[in-house]
Every structure is written in structure tokens, then in C-alpha cells.
């Protein structure tokens, strides 16, 4: 495994150099707080950020994405015949993605890249992307990532992992994609691999030590779906929920979407947009019947999906990476850690 040191004085220059071959995404602050966005040519990623309001999922899964186009003008030869919308799948790099967000992308991949179907929009974007992670030296109070199969120095899903060492970055190059990106930046000051790994391990342990928050998930697997579904606590969990959907939008692992057509004169486009299981419209049949018509049912669906259905279906842990965004953003203080604990400790009374 190769390590590179990057003097912070050379950082911006290297990033700029890579713009020739890569479209860059990274953390920038706007009026809505810190976001992971496409970087304009004169904008550098803000590597001092603590956390972004929204996760990095939009790099591969935009909030709104044009997927198909056609003409509704009957004078055109190919009117009403849909075609894939043009997309830019030239190399892109997301700089400063947090390790838990990179892990989340691996979980989302299980949904979009399956044995039966490959979602071409998500997968093409994924293949075009190099993930340059930034380790978290000082995890925030809501970070519980070490108990969800990732952590502040986790390498899962990353091509490069950067550790901030005050005046420099120490970069662990994890994949050929990462190597290509480092070369495009001109970062080539190799560091001693053994020494660097020791440094990484020390920093990782220090960072993990400061994480005080965790979830227990060990007993979820042995419970049946129906026992948890029929458990008596869901009304209490959902009581304060206002179904705003914020938790689903800020969540790095929420992937549900809607498909809608939009017309401008005779040009028609089909879009996919982020959707939320918190909305009654999400499941309402054309007849008006709604299998998840009550608020409690929708709240239960969200937690059951993340903490039980996903676990049972993929056997890859829960569908939560412990970023703490939903805990922080929820206007009525619903806390997935508490819900997880309630579910994990629930025993059905015979």
C-alpha cells in the first residue's frame, strides 16, 4: 500500500491541476450550510469542514436527474420514442468525502447494481467517480459510525484516504483509481509505508476513542420481521413525528425515488427525483387505498427498512452508517439510536 505526503502549500495547486481531467465535487458552504457539490473552477474544497448537512449521495444520485427524453411533436420522425438523456460520465472525483458516506455508497450500490438489473445512471456515475476520503480526527458528538461497520478512518469504498496532519495531508492510496487521481494532481512524495501505517493506526485509535455514542444491533437478526412489525412501541416512536421527510433527505443511505414526466412545449423529459417514505403519496394507490396511510406505519417502515429488512435481505449489517445527520436534523428529536435500542431489546411477550 502506497502512502503519499502532501504539503498543504501544494494542495490547492494539485487540486487545480486535476481539474484538467476530472470534474470535482467537494464540501463548500453556502447559505444552506455545508454541502457536497460540484466545484466551480475557482472554488477549492473546504477541507476544514466538520460535516455536511446533506451527504455525498447526490454525487451519484442527484436530487433530480433527467433520465429519458423524447419529442411530442408528431412532425418529428421519432416522436414519442424515448431515449436516454445525455449525461456526463467523464471522470469525476469527490474530494473530502467522509468515510461513513463512502461506506453508505457501498450500501446504496446493493440497491442499484443487482444481479437482475443495473441502474445505468447510478452505476455509470459510480464507475466514473474516484472517492478521495478525509478521515475524521475529531468525530462529533452524534457520530456513532464505529458501531455501524465503518468509522472515522474506515477505508471501505474509498480510493484514497487522507489524514489531516496540520501542515500536511498523509494520503493512503488504496486503489488504482486513487493512484491515477494522485498522479493527475502531481502528488508523488512517497512516505515510508510502515511508518505511515503506524501513524494512521495511532490517529485512528485516538479518533475512535473520542466517539462516545453507539448502537447495539446484535439481537436484531434473530427476531422475526412480524414480531418487530407488530411490536407495541411504534405509536410511541412515531408520536412526535411530523412526517417532514428531513431524515430521508439528509440520510446517506436513503435511496428511494419517484419518476415524473415534465414537458416544455413539445420536448418531454422523464426525471427521477428523491422521494421519501414519510409522505402518504409514496404508497397511495390510484383507488385511494393506502397500505401505509397512517403516520405510524410510515415511521415504522423507515426504521424497519434500515434496521431489519435490509439486514435480513443482504446480511451486510444495518442500513445506517452512524453519521448522526438524521438525529441532528430531526425537528422533533426522533433519535435512530434510541429506536434501534428499543428494537434490539424488544422481546415479544408470549
Amino acid at each position, binding site marked *: 500500500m502506497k502512502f503519499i505526503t502532501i504539503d498543504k502549500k501544494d494542495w490547492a495547486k494539485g487540486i487545480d491541476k486535476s481539474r484538467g481531467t476530472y470534474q470535482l465535487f467537494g464540501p463548500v458552504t453556502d447559505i444552506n450550510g455545508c454541502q457536497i457539490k460540484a466545484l466551480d473552477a475557482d472554488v477549492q474544497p473546504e477541507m476544514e469542514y466538520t460535516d455536511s448537512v446533506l451527504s455525498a449521495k447526490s454525487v451519484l444520485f442527484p436530487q433530480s436527474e433527467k*433520465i*429519458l427524453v*423524447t419529442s*411530442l411533436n408528431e412532425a418529428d420522425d421519432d*416522436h*414519442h*420514442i*424515448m*431515449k*436516454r438523456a445525455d449525461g456526463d460520465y467523464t471522470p469525476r472525483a469527490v474530494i473530502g468525502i467522509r468515510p461513513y458516506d463512502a461506506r453508505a455508497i457501498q450500501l446504496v450500490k446493493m*440497491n*442499484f447494481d*443487482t444481479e*437482475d*438489473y*443495473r*441502474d*445505468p445512471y447510478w452505476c455509470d456515475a459510480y464507475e466514473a467517480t474516484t472517492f478521495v476520503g478525509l478521515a475524521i480526527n475529531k468525530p462529533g458528538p452524534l457520530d456513532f459510525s464505529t458501531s455501524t461497520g465503518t468509522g472515522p478512518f474506515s477505508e471501505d469504498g474509498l480510493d484514497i484516504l487522507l489524514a489531516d496532519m496540520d501542515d500536511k495531508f498523509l494520503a493512503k492510496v488504496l486503489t488504482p483509481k486513487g493512484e491515477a487521481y494522485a498522479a493527475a494532481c502531481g502528488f508523488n512524495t512517497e512516505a515510508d509505508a510502515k511508518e505511515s501505517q503506524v501513524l494512521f493506526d495511532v490517529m485512528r485509535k485516538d479518533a475512535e476513542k473520542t466517539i462516545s455514542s453507539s448502537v447495539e444491533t446484535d439481537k436484531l437478526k434473530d427476531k422475526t*420481521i*412480524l414480531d418487530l*412489525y407488530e411490536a407495541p412501541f411504534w405509536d410511541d416512536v412515531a408520536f412526535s413525528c411530523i412526517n417532514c421527510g428531513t431524515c430521508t433527505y439528509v440520510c446517506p443511505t436513503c*435511496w*428511494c*425515488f*419517484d*419518476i*415524473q*414526466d415534465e*414537458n416544455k412545449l413539445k420536448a*418531454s423529459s*422523464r426525471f427521477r427525483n428523491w*422521494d421519501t*417514505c414519510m409522505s402518504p403519496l*409514496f*404508497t*397511495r*394507490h*390510484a*383507488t385511494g*387505498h393506502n*397500505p*401505509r396511510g397512517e403516520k405510524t*406505519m410510515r415511521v415504522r*417502515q423507515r426504521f*424497519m*427498512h434500515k434496521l*431489519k*429488512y*435490509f439486514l*435480513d*435481505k443482504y446480511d451486510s449489517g444495518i442500513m445506517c452508517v452512524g453519521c448522526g445527520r438524521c438525529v441532528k436534523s430531526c425537528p422533533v428529536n426522533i433519535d435512530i439510536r434510541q429506536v434501534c435500542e428499543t428494537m434490539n431489546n424488544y422481546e415479544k411477550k408470549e
Partner: protein
Amino acid sequence: MENPYLPYPVRIDDIEIATEDKSLKTFKFVFLNEGDEEKFAYQAGQFAELSIPGVGEIPIGIASSPVEKGFVKFTVFRTGVVTSYLHNMKVGDIMGLRGPLGNWYPWDKLEGKNVVIIGGGFAFTTLRSSIVYMLDPANRSKFGNIDVVYGARSPGMLLYREELYEWEKRSDINMHITVDGTDDPDWKYNKGFVPQIVEEKAPQADADTFAIVCGPPIMIKFTQPALTKLGYGPDQIIMSLENRMKCGIGMCGRCNIGKELVCKDGPVFTLEEINMTPKEY
């Protein structure tokens, strides 16, 4: 399928009003591109997304049968934005078809077995596909007795009436057509709700008999006890579910019942499987 969101272009070849109240129409589509029909190879019980550019998509069971070539057929109830638009479209119009989607009735497992088909109202589309498939000369010998209980509100609300009356005359299929009520003095079939006719006319269960049930929730609710009374176990009752769908390929996240996705793991489940999942349909 290279891009599972991209529909095959089709032309509306024929439109038939299917019921006396005109709320259902049967659309016959032909594929515009050579080779697409082969790519669309389907089994009885599957569905597809009817895709109208500029309007949207709807998941609808395939009413034509795999043994019918050269076209595909769908019978559509006018109820929402897309179905209303479709009902106003004309022969010759171009639209899209995405599929086939979902699983199908377990034809492998049903080989050599007696099959009881139970349908109500306009949930008879994939059942029609199944009956035509089983009655095909190449397939009929693969199955034992075939019984069909099919009911609607009134004679004019029965789908595929011509075919029903043809099947009624055959000796290799036992038809039990019924209506909730009629004032037609010449009505020579049953009168009564589907669950009641099932109890009276459907064969007793044995290890080699399976029931396929498709209908409105109220019919399903009351047909289950009737079948149980006849001795059918939950693994012998096969059902097709419906839920709101968008992608149809198991990705958009809305149609799940527990960890099963109705669009991809279904729409066909045995009652035994459904009993293990939350009833969110």
C-alpha cells in the same frame, strides 16, 4: 435489458371497450422495432409498465398470453392521470412498454397438477393469460383438471365475455361464471358472490390441487376462508398482489411488504409467504 428504464416503442393496434360501463378498455400493442417482441418474452402472471411519454407510467398485468404471438394486450381500468389519458388515445398512437416485470405463476410447480383459477371484477387479466396458456394444445396435457370461478357485478362487467362463453362449451375446462346479480331472465350461469360459488363449486383440495386467486381485497378476504374450508393449505393458495410502483425493477423502494418487493420478488406469492410478511398491500 440494457437500460431498464427505457421502454420499447409500441403502436396501439386496437382498442376495445371491455365492459358495459366503458370504465375498462383492452389495448392491443404491436412493437415498432423488429426483435423487441422476442426481448419481451414473458410468462403468464407477469406485468409491464405502460409508458406514455409526457404523461407517466402505470404497472399493468399482461392480459395476452405467451402463446399468442405478434402483439401484447392489456386491459386497463380508467382511474388516475395516466389511465385516463390512455383511455383517450387512438389506434396508431405511439407509446412505450417496459418489461416484462416481476415473477409469474409457478408454472413449473403446477405441471401435472389440478389448477383452480379464482378471479373477481377486472383482476382477471393475468388469469386470462394463464387460461389461454394452459388451454393451448401444446400445454393442455401438462395440467390436470382446470376449474375457473370468475365473477363480476353484472354480466356486462365480465371481461373477455366471448372467450368465457367459448370456454364454457369446452369439456377440458370447468367454468363457473357468476354475477352478483342480474335481471336478465336468460342468464344461464351462476348468481352469487365469488366466495360463495367457490365454496359450492370449486373442487375439494388434495395434495395435487392449487388455487390461483386474483381479485379485489374484499373478495380475497372472503375467498380465503372458503378455500380453507375446502382443505387448501396456505402453500396451495397462490395470489398476485398490487402496490403503487414506479420503477418496477426493485429499486425505487415503495412497493415493499416487509423485505419483499411486490414488483420484483412478486407480484405472485403463496399465502404461506404472505403470512410471513406485514400486510402492507
